[in-house]
């Protein structure tokens, strides 16, 4: 286990260097001058020149990247071109919101997904199965930018049950919970659908397994056959799906954060791409990638816990 963690973290470092290079070079070749974004439309050429000099944008690409990398490896992720704020600080402010949103969404997704998937598998080929499969597929097919808008229209504006946006209240307050509901549903629907599908197919698979027959031959009660023998095995592939989806959710926050006015990393990311704020883009992308890898690592660890056959090392 320790070996696995160490190995993954080592890989992570290389992964992050790869990603940072990719991001840095693509931002570098992308049209758009960071200085112009800082200077605004009125800036004269000499204004821009001094901004460029100030930000070190006149150095050759490799020098710039090398400088970035050296600093980053020492834990210094630089300062925003735009706000001159420390990138670490800027991200630290936003990350709780993104994480909160992602966790709430995955909880929604797991809850709905497992339930729908299990019902489907246990009532295979019944109308319940058909309708929950349809639901699952519809969930994957809904554009989430659209769903968010519709949810706001219905629940926030028309019915006024829930706030339109924001995520400033602490999550454990009623207000905070209310704020989370719509964005979590918007973001979680796709994953719920994916989890439901995986649960269904994996349970159907496991239902046919020999050891389930063994359990029945022992006279185990049906409830336990399903709850212990089938579910525990069926959950193994579901865990991977949950892991991958959780990673995906981090990306999905980009749109959700925009629609629901949530101050998170996803929005920081698109805003800083639009503003050509390289250090900020770098910082937020690296962060999301790190989270992604960490989530996958956690998935693997959970994996070893529910599946004794797997041991890394």
């Amino acid at each position: 286990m320790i070996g696995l963690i160490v190995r993954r973290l080592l890989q992570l470092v290389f992964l992050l260097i790869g990603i940072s290079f990719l991001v840095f070079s693509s931002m570098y070749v992308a049209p758009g001058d960071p200085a112009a974004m800082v200077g605004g439309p009125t800036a004269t050429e000499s204004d821009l020149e001094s901004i460029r000099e100030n930000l070190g944008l006149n150095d050759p690409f490799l020098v710039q990247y090398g400088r970035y990398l050296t600093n980053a490896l020492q834990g210094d992720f630089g300062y925003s071109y735009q706000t001159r704020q420390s990138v670490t600080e800027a991200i630290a402010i936003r990350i709780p919101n993104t994480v909160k949103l992602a966790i709430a969404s995955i909880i929604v997704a797991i809850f709905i997904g497992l339930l729908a998937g299990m019902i489907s598998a246990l009532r295979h080929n019944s109308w319940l199965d058909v309708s929950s499969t349809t639901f699952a597929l519809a969930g994957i097919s809904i554009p989430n930018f659209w769903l968010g808008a519709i949810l706001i229209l219905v629940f926030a504006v028309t019915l006024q049950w829930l706030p339109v946006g924001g995520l400033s209240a602490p999550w454990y307050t009623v207000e905070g919970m209310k704020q989370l509901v719509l964005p979590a549903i918007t973001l979680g629907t796709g994953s719920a659908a994916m989890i439901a599908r995986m649960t269904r197919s994996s349970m159907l698979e496991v239902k046919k397994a020999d050891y389930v027959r063994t359990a029945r031959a022992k006279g185990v009660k049906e409830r336990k056959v399903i709850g212990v023998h089938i579910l525990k095995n069926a959950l193994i592939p579901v865990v991977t799906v949950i892991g991958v989806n959780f990673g995906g959710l981090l990306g999905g926050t980009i749109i959700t954060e925009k629609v629901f006015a949530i101050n998170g990393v996803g929005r920081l990311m698109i805003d800083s791409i639009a503003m050509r704020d390289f250090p900020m883009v770098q910082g937020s992308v690296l962060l999301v990638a790190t989270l992604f890898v960490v989530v996958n690592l956690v998935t693997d660890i959970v994996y070893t816990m529910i599946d004794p056959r797997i041991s890394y090392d």
Partner: protein
Amino acid sequence: ACGGESASAPKDAEAAEGNETFTYATTTDAVGLSPIMTNDSPSSNVIEQVYEKLFNRNYETGEIEPELAESYENPDDLTWVIKLKEGVKFHDGTDFNAEAVKYTFDKLRDPATAAPRASLLEPVDTITVLDDYTVEIKTKYPYGSFLAALSHANASIVSPTADQKQDLMKEPVGTGAFKFVSWTPGDQVVLEANEEYRDGAPAIKKVVYRVVPEVSTAISMLQTGEVNFIDGLPTEQIKRLESMENINIEKKQGTSQYYLTFNHAKEMNKDPEFRKAVASAIDRDAYVEKLNGLGVRSDSVIGPEVFGYDESKDNAGTPYDLEAAKELVEKNGYGEKPIKLLTADRENFMLMAEIVQSQLTEAGFNVQIETMEWAAFLDTARAGDYDLTFLSWSNVTADGSELLYPNFHSDNAGSSNRAFYNNPEFDKLVEASRSTVDQEERLNYLDQANALMLEDNAVVIMNHGVVTAALDKNYEGLELSATGQWSLQNIVRK
């Protein structure tokens, strides 16, 4: 079921707590809170409340009035002697005085600062402190729109002590009616009433600037009472806003303008008939109608709210005449070559692009739209990699010279003159308008320059802006200026 009631839960909770919070929603967060280091409207919306300038443009009349200044005089064309108000204190308790003015302006001008709006003081030669409350500023050449420059938000005076002690970008210290409380970047800025303000403390005690990137979300929040005030209402949402009962919509002619420009560096665009054909193919009336009252129709390059405007220019441009356009296109074969219509993917540019593309197509042109995100657009436009494009100018100084010089003077071609307009005669007029201190004369120069551009069909003015805001019916007293700036100082709850 009136507005007051629909403002549900959040409002009641606050009322119970007893602190009056006034919430404003902005789509973009402030870049920073120092007037020296920023140059964007979300930032200046905060800066305007926290800091003050030497002069201020009256929200109602548009006249320039002293703010931190007491009075000024011009001993000669190059010298400005400004007397300052006495007894004004910064929020940190230090005194506002001539040193502060010199400190602020020197810092703004210093190349090492790399201030984005350093150009405001570009004509300034020296700044001298004559006594505690008098400064003397000498310019390199007569500078006609100097007062306009000094009334710009970026010329706000900062507390030198605070600037040396802390980062004003994060913790601003000014002399304004509101004091800074906190800033959560990307989320909200909180201000509170400055109880010691020399004209009396504002009525609202707490102001929150919330970042709500989607306008429609912001409007929904306005509807539910989560937000009390938004500005820059988008045309698409006007109908919806008008149907909402709990808000008042305020509109006012503005200084901004939107126009189609040719890339004058391109061979094709040097043909006056081509420009004429394009201009006559564009039905600006139909377009302005589409703006639902959020645009003012005028051909004049210098808009009604801008210094240098003359009514006679309203209809001085090439009128819409589809048949004439078709004829010209037909005659000169303009339809053969594809035309690249570059546009940024924000605000009304897309609307203009779609409508203009459709109208030009109707006239027989072959126009392809190319949208770009803002950063790429600025780069591309500056590099001149387009045939036609839309540009806008918000003109915070409301001075015609500050419009014509950066945007169309050949000095700036390739930087802020993205149209690459190059007309020596025009250049001379603009220079004259800038270096004359006599305002009457300046008016004359500007009008001539304006006429020249219209004659040339240098640009096609799509519309002049309308400044808008939507305010919760429970409040009144918002001051809105033609430049789009506003003051919360006199807002009161009904």
